[in-house]
């Protein structure tokens, strides 16, 4: 279906050589990182809220069958039609059929990563249906014929100058100037016509509320409501892990999601859709369809990747990942980039096709720290590495290095000695807290700075502390 991709290494090398890309990524991630830190500092309850958010997601997953059935009951009672799809192909078929049955010519879409995951854009094109992406970033990448490079800012890899070039060709008339404000106005004009003449609007869902049957979507632009109100039919596609027991639970998670994603407190629009237009309503579609998609999620639930089902797609782990910030989202090759993508892509595409991803991480634990639902990303990445190693997919240096590590780890005394030497040796190459080159690992550190370890290992420091406690030096 898709052309063979260049290898991960080739993609990474290309990304690292592209300085414009680095510039574009930095412009957005720097702001995102700063704003998230501010939002968390202004919310002293963040840690408690995070523990609770995690518990809510764990509770839902532990009772997922119950909540799926409850949601289906209530959504059906509201007049929506609920569909189930085991995989991406089934999901595509369901959506395409609804569109073709309705004789739809024009479909507007509000950004949804699940839509990308199930390959909806291609499926609609293959069915001869015009698809218009309405989220500004999705509009940009539709004009560029690209895929999203970030789950919150899909066009993060594009500089303002590049967007100006795209709009000059894609907008009629082209924008009068290339500052962001003028370009946003131009997109507003361009897309307004499409909103009002679409036959079907397709959106995703951040949450599925079990006890009301409503779907909840958050946006800043207002494109979701403009996508879902004027057309005759509204279709929602959502992963089965999106359930929450009630609206109040959704709010508890929203407080975490928005702060972690954009550093705001709530997005400008938090919208709950519940069924089609009621009798007498002034506007709204006459049909609502909800497609519940599995696509690997029940597999994750059954194994060590269950924790990953907590993910609320905030994107914080990529904004804070040194590797992501060097190579951008496209180099990862999957629909989901960054650390969370490196865990999810092997589930979706198979480990053989994505075995390099779990290595594309410095494992410094920073992404686990920022994750608002406490997903142990380094542990899950290590689990993939282990599987790859066991099935003989690893080769070359990583395998040798991991083999060495495993040997050492099995002999605690030797491991401690080894890491002590390693730590001291690493410090020799470090400048001001970051290591910019390590012999034999030039390919790694040429574009990546490793955090410089403290002069003593954790075990050394721990023992010294214990010693001090007992009154010894």
């Amino acid at each position, binding site marked *: 279906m898709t052309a063979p991709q260049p290898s991960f290494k080739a993609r990474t090398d290309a990304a690292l050589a592209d300085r414009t890309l680095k510039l574009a990524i930095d412009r957005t991630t720097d702001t*995102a990182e700063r704003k998230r830190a501010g939002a968390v500092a202004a919310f002293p309850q963040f840690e408690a809220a995070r523990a609770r958010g995690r518990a809510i997601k764990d509770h839902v997953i532990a009772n*997922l069958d119950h909540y799926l059935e409850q949601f289906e009951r209530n959504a059906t009672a509201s007049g929506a039609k609920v569909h189930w799809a085991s995989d991406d192909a089934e999901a595509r078929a369901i959506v395409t059929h609804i569109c073709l049955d309705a004789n739809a010519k024009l479909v507007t879409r509000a950004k949804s990563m699940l839509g990308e995951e199930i390959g909806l854009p291609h499926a609609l094109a293959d069915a001869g249906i015009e698809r218009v992406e309405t989220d500004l970033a999705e509009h940009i990448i539709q004009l560029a014929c690209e895929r999203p490079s970030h789950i919150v800012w899909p066009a993060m890899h594009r500089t303002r100058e590049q967007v100006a070039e795209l709009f000059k060709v894609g907008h009629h008339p082209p924008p009068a100037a290339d500052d962001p*404000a003028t370009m946003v106005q131009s997109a507003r004009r361009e897309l307004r016509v499409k909103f009002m003449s679409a036959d079907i609007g397709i959106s995703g869902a951040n949450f599925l509320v079990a006890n009301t049957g409503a779907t909840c979507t958050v946006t800043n632009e207002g494109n979701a409501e403009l996508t879902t*109100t004027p057309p005759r039919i509204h279709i929602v596609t959502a992963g089965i892990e999106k359930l929450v027991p009630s609206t109040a639970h959704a709010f508890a998670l*929203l407080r975490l999601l928005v702060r972690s994603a954009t550093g*705001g407190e709530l997005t*400008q629009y938090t919208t709950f859709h519940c069924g089609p237009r009621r009798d007498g309503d*002034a506007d709204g579609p006459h049909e609502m369809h909800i497609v519940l998609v599995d696509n690997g999620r*029940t597999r994750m639930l059954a194994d060590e990747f269950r924790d990953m089902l907590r993910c609320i797609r905030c994107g914080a782990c990529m904004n804070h990942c040194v590797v992501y910030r060097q190579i951008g989202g496209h180099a990862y090759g999957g629909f989901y980039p960054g650390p969370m993508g490196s865990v999810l892509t092997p589930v979706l595409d198979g480990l053989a096709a994505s075995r390099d991803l779990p290595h594309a991480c410095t494992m410094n634990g920073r992404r686990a720290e920022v994750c608002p639902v406490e997903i142990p990303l380094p542990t899950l990445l290590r689990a993939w590495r282990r599987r790859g190693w066991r099935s003989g997919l690893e080769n070359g240096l990583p395998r040798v290095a991991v083999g060495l590590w495993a040997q050492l780890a099995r002999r605690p005394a030797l491991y401690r000695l080894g890491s002590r030497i390693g730590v001291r040796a690493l410090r020799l190459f470090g400048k001001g807290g970051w290591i910019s080159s390590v012999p034999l690992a030039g390919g790694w550190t040429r574009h990546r700075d490793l955090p410089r370890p403290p002069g003593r290992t954790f075990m050394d420091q721990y023992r010294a502390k214990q010693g001090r406690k007992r009154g010894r030096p």
Partner: protein
Amino acid sequence: MTARNRILTAVRRGLGGTRRPPAAIAAQAAMLLDDPEFIRPALVATTLPEAFELKAAVLGTTVERVASMDQMSGSVRRYLAAHALPPSLALQQSRDLTGLDWSGIETHASIAPDEVAALGIAVRGIAESGSLVIRSGADKPILLSFLPLHHIVVLRADTLVAHLDDYAAIMQGEAQPRNAILITGPSGTTDIEGSYVRGAHGPGFLHVVMVGS
């Protein structure tokens, strides 16, 4: 086997063990919302209107307070004049609004794709986040809040609740509308290099007239 059964069977197999009774699940779900003050931000002011106003201002919503509904149309007139807008308004067809004196302003029920200004009523306000709640309904077109460049909203101070969870508790007992929306500020985007631009697709200006105290 249908996809529905395949998925539910796979979920149950993945979870293993015996499934818990719905009452036990509900009790645990309720427990997860215990002690709400530990997991939500405190209000930024002691009164609800003040807290709402402070929060709303963060994202650029403007607020004017008037004592009663009679003074509302005057406030709207001032807003239109201050922004040099034509004296024309798409008006939500609620009797609370259509019954007011709109002399000098042309009002209409229709909402054009390039509508300049519209006036509607919020069902509720939320002080924690400075959010307005609007809902679809017979006299409540959703597009009234999204097509215009200037969205003016009447908020009765006595409909304010403190926290998001308070709103959730109230709406739980009510019939669900097709669409319920929390509006927290004018439409905005950071999609071009993270720089913040207002009026992406929805209104670029959000003005609240808070009635009563």
